[in-house]
C-alpha cells in the first residue's frame, strides 16, 4: 500500500553515490586486482621519478655549483639551473609513454568489466557514477605512483649529486635548495615533489578519461551482452 502511495507521486529523480562510498568501491576494485594495479602504478612511478630526478637533480647541482663558485671567486655566473634540451625531450617522452600505459591499462580494465558496468547501471547507477568510479580508481593509482615516484626521483637526484660532490654531505646540504632554485624560481626540491604528485595524478586521469567515458555511455543491456 505504501508502495502504491509512492508510485502515485511524481518520480523523484535522485540517485546518489556518496563520495566516501565511491572511494571505498574504487579502493576495493584496486585491491582485488592488486598486481595489475601495481603494474599500472609502477608505470606512473617510473615516469614521475624520472621527471622529479631531472628537475631536482639540476636544481641541486646548480645550488652546489653556485655555492662553490661563490666561495671560489664570488661570481655566480654559470649557475643557471636550466635543464638540457635533450633531457626535456626525454622527460616528455617518458610522460607520454606513461599516459599511453595508463590508457592501455584502463582500457583493459574497462573492457574486462563491461558486464559489471552494465549491472551497476541496471541497479540504478548513472553514467557519471561509472565515470567517477573509474577516474577515482586511476587517480588513486596516480597518486600512489606519483608519491612513490617523487620520493624515488628525489633520492636518485640526491645520490647523483652526492657522488658528484665526493660524498660530502656538507657541500650538498650547505645551501640545499629546499624551496627555490638559485634563481629564486619555485623549483626547489619540495615544490618539485608536489609538482610530481600533481602531474602523476593528472596523467592518470587523462589516461583513464577516454575509457571511462566510453564505459559509462554504454546502454546497460549491451554492456551485459558483451562476452569477454
Amino acid at each position, binding site marked *: 500500500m505504501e508502495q502504491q502511495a509512492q508510485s502515485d507521486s511524481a518520480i523523484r529523480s535522485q540517485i546518489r553515490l556518496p563520495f566516501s562510498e565511491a572511494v571505498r568501491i574504487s579502493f576495493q576494485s584496486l585491491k582485488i586486482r592488486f598486481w595489475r594495479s601495481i603494474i599500472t602504478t609502477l608505470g606512473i612511478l617510473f615516469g614521475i621519478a624520472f621527471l622529479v630526478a631531472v628537475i631536482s637533480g639540476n636544481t641541486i647541482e646548480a645550488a652546489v655549483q653556485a655555492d662553490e663558485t661563490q666561495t671560489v671567486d664570488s661570481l655566480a655566473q654559470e649557475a643557471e639551473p636550466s635543464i638540457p634540451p635533450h633531457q626535456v625531450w626525454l622527460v616528455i617522452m617518458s610522460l607520454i609513454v606513461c599516459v599511453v600505459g595508463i590508457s592501455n591499462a584502463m582500457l583493459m580494465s574497462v573492457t574486462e568489466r563491461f*558486464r559489471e558496468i552494465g549491472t551497476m547501471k541496471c*541497479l540504478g*547507477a548513472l553514467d557519471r557514477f561509472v565515470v567517477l568510479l573509474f577516474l577515482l580508481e586511476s587517480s588513486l593509482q596516480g597518486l600512489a605512483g606519483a608519491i612513490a615516484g617523487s620520493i624515488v626521483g628525489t633520492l636518485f637526484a640526491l645520490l647523483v649529486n652526492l657522488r658528484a660532490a665526493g660524498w660530502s654531505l656538507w657541500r650538498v646540504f650547505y645551501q640545499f635548495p629546499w624551496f627555490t632554485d638559485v634563481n629564486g624560481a619555485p623549483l626547489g626540491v619540495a615544490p618539485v615533489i608536489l609538482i610530481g604528485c600533481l602531474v602523476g595524478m593528472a596523467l592518470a586521469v587523462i589516461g583513464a578519461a577516454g575509457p571511462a567515458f566510453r564505459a559509462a555511455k554504454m546502454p546497460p*543491456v549491451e554492456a551485459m551482452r558483451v562476452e569477454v
Partner: protein
Amino acid sequence: MAANDIVVSAIGVHKEYRMGSEVVHALDGIDIDIYRGEYLSLMGPSGSGKSTLFNMIGALDQPTKGDVFIEGENMAQLTMEQLAWIRCNRMGYIFQSFNLLIVMTALENVTLPMIFAGLSPKQREERGKELLSIVGLGDRWSHRPTELSGGQQQRVAIARALANDPDIVLADEPTANLDTKTGREIINLLKELNESQNVTIVSATHDLKMLDVSDRVVYIRDGKVEQIRARDEIDIHVGSLAGEHE
C-alpha cells in the same frame, strides 16, 4: 492481489534493429498488461524477441514504436536520471549469469542499490542482512561471489533484486546456468517471495519448470504474442514436462 491493478503495460510495441543494411523486426506489435502481484513467464525460443520484450518491460531499452508504461509512467518521456531512479527503486533484476560484482561481498552486493537509493550505512546493513537471511544465506554475508556456489550466487542476486522493495522483479533465464535441482530451488524461492512479499515477477525463460509456478504464461514467437495462458489452462501439461531439463 488486486486483479486489475496494472504495473506494466506495453501498447503496440515494435522494436527494429539494423543489421548492416537489413532491418530486423525483433518485436512486431506487442500488447501486454502485467498485473500487480502476478508471476508471469515469457516463453519462447531463442530469437523470438522474448529478451527484447523483457528489456522493454524492465526499462532497459526503448521501443522503436509503441509505448511502455511502468506504474503509469511512459518510459519514452523520462530522462536518464528518472530511468535510473526507476531501475533502482521500482525494478529488481535477476540474470542468467548472476552478474554479481566480484569485488564485493554478498552483503555489499545486496546493499549497492541501497547506496544509490540513499539509505544510511546502518539501514543498509540491517536490510541487507535481513534479505540475505530471507534467501537462506544469513550466515554467508561476508563471502565473495567466488566463494559461493551457483545457486548461492543466484540467491544473493535475488536478495539484491529485492533491495529497494521493487514493484517488479525481472528474472532473465534465472535457472539456465543451474542444475535441475538448484534451478527448482530458485524457482520455489521466487514463488515464495512472490506470495509472501507480493512482488510481481516477470521471468523470461524456456525452463518448463517455471510453468508450474506461473500465474500466466505468455508465449512469444516471431516478435508477436502467440498466446497467453492462465495457469489452470496449462496445469495438465506440466505433469509430463516437470522432469525435463530444458
